[in-house]
């Protein structure tokens, strides 16, 4: 196994920052899943792909746009018609899908080294994210487990709600350091903890 390096390393400063005298508004962390895989179904094969995701991860995906679920080990959510992002705390997820997502069902793209996953949690998570993305982050509009694709200043971002006040953000690894710094600036006024 190769040693995993984080693109955030030069700017990742654990501890409390910004205006935290009245409490920490958000906590920022890197999730660093072992595997991140994008799965895409050919037209009409979406149900089979969702069933395959279920058989590999044990996650049950409901019908509908942006459907998602997560467990201790896995996360999965739809981010486009027939397309899903799946992560695994362990390495080797693309291999687990190989042979199960057959050429007749769709395609597998291993993005483990192509994305950086960042978690923002805490009472001000929605507030901070709403500064960056023109998306409704309220729980009613963005239920737990569900996912979206959106953009901040051309940095394409896939977001899954991982808890009532927690979101997982997947960004291109080459943009991750810049995005992280911007997220820190956006969190400054509410006080943030990096860990």
């Amino acid at each position: 196994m190769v040693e995993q390096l984080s693109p955030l390393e030069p700017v990742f400063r654990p501890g409390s920052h910004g205006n935290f005298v009245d409490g920490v508004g958000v906590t920022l962390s890197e999730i660093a899943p072992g595997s991140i895989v994008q799965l895409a179904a050919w037209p009409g094969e979406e149900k089979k792909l969702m069933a395959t995701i279920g058989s590999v991860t044990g996650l049950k995906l409901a019908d509908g746009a942006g459907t998602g679920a997560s467990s201790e080990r896995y996360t999965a959510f739809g981010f486009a018609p027939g397309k899903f992002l799946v992560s695994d705390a362990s390495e080797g997820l693309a291999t687990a899908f190989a042979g199960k997502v057959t050429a007749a069902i769709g395609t597998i793209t291993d993005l483990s080294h192509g994305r950086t996953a960042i978690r923002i949690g805490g009472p001000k998570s929605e507030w901070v994210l709403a500064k960056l993305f023109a998306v409704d982050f309220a729980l009613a509009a963005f239920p737990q487990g569900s996912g979206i694709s959106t953009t901040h200043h051309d940095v394409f971002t896939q977001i899954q709600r991982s808890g009532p006040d927690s979101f997982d953000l997947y960004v291109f690894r080459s943009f991750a350091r810049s995005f992280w710094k911007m997220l820190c600036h956006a969190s400054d006024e509410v006080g943030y903890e990096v860990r």
Partner: protein
Amino acid sequence: MLITCPYCGPRDVSEFAYQGDGNRTRPDPASTDPEAWNAYVYDRLNPAGLHNEIWQHAGGCRAHLAVVRDTLTHEISSVRFAREHGAPAHGRRKPGAKA
């Protein structure tokens, strides 16, 4: 301006890329008819009112969408996946027809 993507829901126009007039019909690639190609590349209705357009949700699900937009008010009266029923029927014109 908001465009309600059939997959993503209402999103700011900055997430979308305009892909051009939705009324055009591409000539057969084997065609050497210069009038048909000229019409496809250059002729536009430029209506004051409802206009069929193709947009891509480039900063979202990346689907191509068939949108009907009012060029006077920017009101969006319909959005659907471009792949679902071919080009929208509204305002469709024949190649070479003058505005």
